[in-house]
């Protein structure tokens, strides 16, 4: 694979699956500098993984695998701060980026609470919760994690209860 082909695939994946990568990053790291650090690691690993991608797995499954494995290795390792790197990522909190309709605000709040609740879960459970909320099927989750669909079913029942419990107080306030 040539460098330009790799770059073309990377750019396409970035357009199509940026949201997925950001969800994993936010689900695993709370502070913005950590998110920035982890996001760079995820991008680097996604970039490096492209030559090995043969199209057998779905793109989303592949990217989930890379993102989760990177997030788990990142939290295990040292929090490296890249000195002198140029900032390419900017979280947009300007009024234009906010939804115009009033009911979207509680939804944003719910999503923020969900991220906070997910970060409290054990790591594998957090990965499952992220994929389940994104609507992945059991077989897709099994492919990403390498565990049986039956076990995923059992775990998801528990995770749903745990999330509901953690979200109880949060949604009451809204």
């Amino acid at each position, binding site marked *: 694979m040539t460098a330009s082909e790799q*770059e073309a695939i*990377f*750019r396409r994946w*970035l357009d199509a699956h*940026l*949201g997925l990568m*950001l*969800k994993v990053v*936010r689900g695993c790291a709370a502070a913005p500098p950590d998110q920035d650090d982890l996001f*760079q690691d995820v*991008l*680097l*690993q*996604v*970039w*490096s*993984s492209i030559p*090995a991608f043969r199209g057998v*797995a779905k793109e989303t499954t*592949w990217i989930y*695998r*890379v993102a989760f*494995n*990177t997030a*788990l290795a990142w939290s*295990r390792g040292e929090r490296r701060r*890249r000195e002198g*790197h*140029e*900032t*390419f*990522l*900017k*979280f*947009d*909190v300007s009024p234009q*980026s906010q939804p115009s309709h009033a009911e*979207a605000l509680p*939804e*944003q709040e*719910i*999503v923020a609470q*969900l991220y906070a609740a997910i970060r409290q879960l*054990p*790591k*594998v*459970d957090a990965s499952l919760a992220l994929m389940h*909320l*994104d*609507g992945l099927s059991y077989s897709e989750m099994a492919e*990403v*994690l*390498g*565990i*049986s669909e039956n*076990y995923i079913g059992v775990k998801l029942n528990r995770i*749903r209860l745990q*999330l*509901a419990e953690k979200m109880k107080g949060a*949604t009451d306030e809204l």
Partner: protein
Amino acid sequence: MNFEDFQKAWQSQDASAQVTINAEVLMKEVRRNQQQFQATIFWRDAREVGVAIFLTWYFIQRGLRTDSWTDCLVGLTCFGVGAFMVVDRLLQRKKQPLASDSLLVCVQTSLLQVNHQIWLLKNIFWWYLLPLSAALGVSVAVTCWHELDRASQLAGWCGYAVVCILLDWFLYWLNQTAVKKSLVPRRRELEVLLAETGNPVPTSTKP
């Protein structure tokens, strides 16, 4: 609210809409990081192999020049230790987990690697400290035997033994501290992850 409501709210978010990415800077950073990573790996390997090659060359050429079999012995020992490190590194590189492996495979492979690192450092005395100390010890003993009187021979041997024991003990302690502070906690984290996936933790990895 039930889980379906959470799922609806979750899927309505457009995570990517809240970030702006400068694609050109990003590509530059990704390439720079990739080069930096490759350079780090290259220089680490070059340093280890380079030191082993230099020491092997230094002692063997000195041994051949002065017709000293003990220097040749030290040179060959350096070669042996260096070769062991290089072969081990090459074998371990083949077993490294890929970021695109499933999470379970990644955890299992990482656990094997951490266990291997622990084994390597716990046994550093046998494959690193003892061969080098013994070869240098033979060299010192023979030199003292040929060149010094009886009293100085004893002082030379004792001096080497003391320095060698202290240095070896310090290096051994340093490595065991690294095992305790860095590798064992990492192994524990991986074992927790493995248990979370519903897979039994191999008994050989349990502390």
